[in-house]
């Protein structure tokens, strides 16, 4: 099959097939169509070999070439082919890559919802493969879709999740896109200070020429343009205008008509916002429109027409209506729902008889809401399932660590068998868990309860008995007995802690349950202060939310006990209407963001998200820790 004679240890070994592919891949002299023809022949041959990787790589190359040639249908078709092949061969990594490709090409047909689902599949697969870079990449694509559908909160959450995976990698292109995404989301939500903070993070990444190259020249122009827009939103018009002017002098802009038009249009618009109608603004806006018409830049045309419509809104409503209708026409071309909505809003305002538009506006508004909700559901369900697995693994790791410490062989085997049995049961049950989030939480709760009982009834009791047996009945020298019994005791306490932490929650008398979990930590130099727990009307909170809130609070308290060395903890329960808030404050040592993930706080976040709640916190090393849990009734 293959000639595996190594030329040199450090050289990469190529089979003839791999060599042929590499040559084709590197050959820049052929036309795209010619390369595609040869690639087709190559694929036919490669499929009969047993080198799966080369087939996948050929497919990936083929889809990219089709996309480059504007043959979107073919790109989509071969992405499906790649997926089928990877499925057939049971190769999850390439299945993930095929899903990402499907996401990209489906998006080019403006099918955002479908595209989001593909990315989510890819995300799930790479997550189970622990491939941080590809997880982050897919989360970025997902966040972009959420952003372009106007779900800024969702986009932010997804982007922040993406950052967690990419932070420690050198993928600064993706990292900068994620920051940018968060910045835009904040801007759209009118939180301009945060928007600027994240925008500055992006620009700070472009430290040297190498980094700039990685991020991309055009992307950088967009980020700077965003900065100017944010400054204008903050009413810092002069700073914004001077930044736009700097950009217009930049050779990179002068060589790029689209960017030039973008900046001109924005500059004209900002000047108008600053000082009302003026000739300079009008000229800039009209020039930009002309450039964009010439370049057939559809999304640019939407922006220009919206700007102009707003410009003429007060004084020349007929002109304004004309531009609004032009904006709508272009938005329809791209099927850009947000732009359609914005243009419709302008038309309804300007047109005397706008019943049809009003009807369409309602429809599209509902559509946007539905898609966003669906996307969030898709994402959070996947996230929840995956996290469940991780959580089970954590318990498994913790107990495995205990096992290592055991130095008496027979005992460790005994314990290992018990543990294995317990966790096998847990694992099998975990595998059966699916369905909706509610069901997921309920099932988790049940499983945790069962698990706690099992650990309690079997493991912890046996640990205790074994310890006493060794202590009282085993005839071995004191010198080796004492450390052994000490170790066993430690093991017993820790097993008991697992059982305590996962035990059943009494949901009937829920305030009492919460009080108990707080009491548990009101000891050994820690003072717990609360306000009346029934400030929140727990009778109106559904059970599955109670479970999550309980676990989150428990996690915070356990964290406090383990790491904070706090001497005072305040937990405050608040309610306004259907919104509930729990505020946790301690006066402990706090911690820096680096150690954040190790502290189980990520679990709290995902748990809260699973009930559409939020978790936010504030800490710095040495200054205590504050956290807020928000959830609705």
């Amino acid at each position: 099959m293959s000639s595996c004679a190594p030329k040199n240890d450090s050289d990469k070994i190529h089979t003839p097939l791999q060599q042929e592919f590499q040559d084709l891949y590197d050959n820049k002299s052929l036309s795209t169509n010619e390369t595609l023809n040869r690639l087709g022949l190559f694929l036919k041959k490669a499929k009969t070999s047993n080198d799966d990787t080369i087939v996948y790589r050929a497919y990936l190359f083929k889809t990219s070439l089709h996309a480059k040639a504007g043959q979107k249908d073919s790109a989509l078709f071969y992405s499906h082919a790649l997926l089928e092949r990877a499925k057939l061969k049971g190769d999850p990594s390439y299945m993930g890559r095929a899903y990402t490709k499907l996401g990209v090409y489906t998006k080019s047909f403006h099918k955002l919802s479908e595209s989001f689902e593909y990315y989510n599949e890819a995300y799930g697969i790479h997550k189970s493969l622990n491939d941080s870079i590809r997880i982050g990449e897919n989360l970025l694509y997902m966040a972009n879709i959420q952003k372009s559908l106007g779900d800024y909160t969702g986009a932010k959450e997804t982007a922040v999740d993406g950052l967690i995976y990419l932070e420690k990698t050198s993928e600064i292109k993706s990292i900068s896109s994620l920051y940018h995404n968060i910045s835009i989301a904040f801007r759209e939500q009118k939180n301009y200070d945060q928007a600027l903070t994240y925008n500055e993070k992006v620009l700070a990444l472009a430290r040297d020429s190498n980094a700039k190259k990685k991020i991309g020249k055009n992307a950088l122009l967009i980020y700077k343009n965003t900065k100017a827009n944010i400054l204008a939103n903050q009413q810092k018009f002069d700073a914004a205008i001077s930044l736009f002017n700097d950009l217009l002098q930049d050779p990179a802009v002068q060589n790029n008509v689209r960017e030039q038009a973008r900046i001109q249009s924005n500059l004209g618009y900002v000047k108008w916002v600053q000082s009302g109608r003026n000739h300079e603004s009008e000229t800039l806006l009209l020039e930009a429109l002309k450039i964009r018409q010439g370049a057939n830049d559809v999304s640019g045309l939407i922006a220009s027409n919206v700007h102009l419509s707003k410009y003429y809104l007060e004084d020349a409503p007929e002109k304004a209506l004309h531009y609004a209708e032009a904006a709508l026409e272009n938005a329809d071309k791209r099927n850009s729902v947000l732009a359609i909505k914005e243009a419709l809003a302008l038309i309804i305002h300007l047109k005397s008889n706008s019943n049809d538009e009003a009807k369409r506006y309602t429809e599209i508004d509902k559509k946007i809401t539905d898609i966003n909700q669906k996307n969030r559901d898709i994402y959070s369900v996947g996230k929840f399932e995956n996290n469940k697995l991780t959580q089970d693994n954590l318990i498994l790791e913790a107990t495995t660590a205990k096992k290592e410490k055991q130095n008496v062989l027979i005992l460790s085997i005994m314990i290992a068998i018990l543990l294995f049995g317990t966790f096998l049961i847990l694992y099998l049950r975990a595998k059966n868990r699916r369905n909706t989030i509610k069901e997921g939480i309920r099932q988790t709760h049940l499983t945790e309860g069962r698990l706690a009982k099992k650990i309690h009834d079997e493991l912890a009791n046996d640990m205790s008995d074994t310890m006493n047996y060794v202590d009282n009945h085993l005839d071995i020298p004191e010198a080796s007995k004492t450390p052994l019994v000490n170790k066993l005791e430690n093991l017993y306490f820790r097993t008991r802690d697992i059982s305590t932490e996962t035990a059943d929650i009494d949901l009937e008398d829920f305030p009492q349950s919460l009080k108990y979990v707080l009491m548990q930590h009101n000891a050994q130099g820690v003072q717990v202060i609360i306000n009346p727990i029934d400030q929140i009307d727990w009778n109106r909170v559904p059970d599955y939310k109670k479970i999550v809130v309980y676990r989150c609070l428990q996690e915070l308290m356990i964290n406090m006990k383990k790491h904070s060395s706090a001497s005072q903890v305040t937990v405050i329960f608040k309610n306004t209407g259907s919104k509930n808030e729990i505020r946790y404050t301690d006066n402990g040592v706090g911690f820096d963001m680096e150690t954040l993930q190790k502290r189980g706080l990520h679990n709290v976040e995902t748990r809260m998200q699973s009930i559409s709640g939020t978790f936010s916190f504030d800490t710095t090393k040495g200054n205590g820790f504050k956290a807020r849990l928000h959830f609705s009734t």
Partner: protein
Amino acid sequence: MIQQKETALRPVYIFPLKNNAMFQKVLIAEDHNLTHRGLESTLNEIPVPQVLTTQYCDDALLKIKSALLSQEPFELLITDLSFDDAHRDRLLTTGEELIEAIRKVQPSIKIIVFSIENRIGKIKNLFEHYEINGFVGKGREEHRDIKKALQTVFEGGVYRSQQMEQRFRSAGDINEIHQNDVQILDLLSKGQSQPQIASSFSPPLSLSSIEKRVNKLKDLFNAKTLAQLVSIAKDRGII
């Protein structure tokens, strides 16, 4: 204080031997072989003449009932809280259910819970709601603890290990800020004086009671001045 319920229906019985300063008849409900053997041998050391063991709650209840009917009731029950699930058709599945059922048929029986339970809230509940007479945690000290518990309970007391006693006290110390306190803090933050605050309550509170509460809050949050107290209250989200 924990008090036993007295009922008119309570059967009358006499301790068999007056000079024996210890329980004469004890039932152990515990489904772990090693554990109940350990318990039995501890009780034999004391000694307790009659020790019976059962592994099921239902069976424990039957034994208590029949001993009562034959005028030889058990004086003490030592029970675990958690029992194996293996037998499906059981009526009673947990120690708590067992205690509740037994208290109905023989309110005067003493009960000691022997368990690995570690949640202070749950243990508190056992004393307060189920009115048990003693709690012994499983662990290294269990033999010594059981002996002490039997002695204390026999003498009419309530037994908890020293460590448990400490945790009990600190668990009781959980500080709950009253809604009145929140209102006081809120008014302070709005710059009202303490006399003003006193009169803004309906019915109005005395100035001294406001001062007392404010001082208590200052103590609690370790605040030296009112301004500091208000800023802490804001920081913690109390107001």
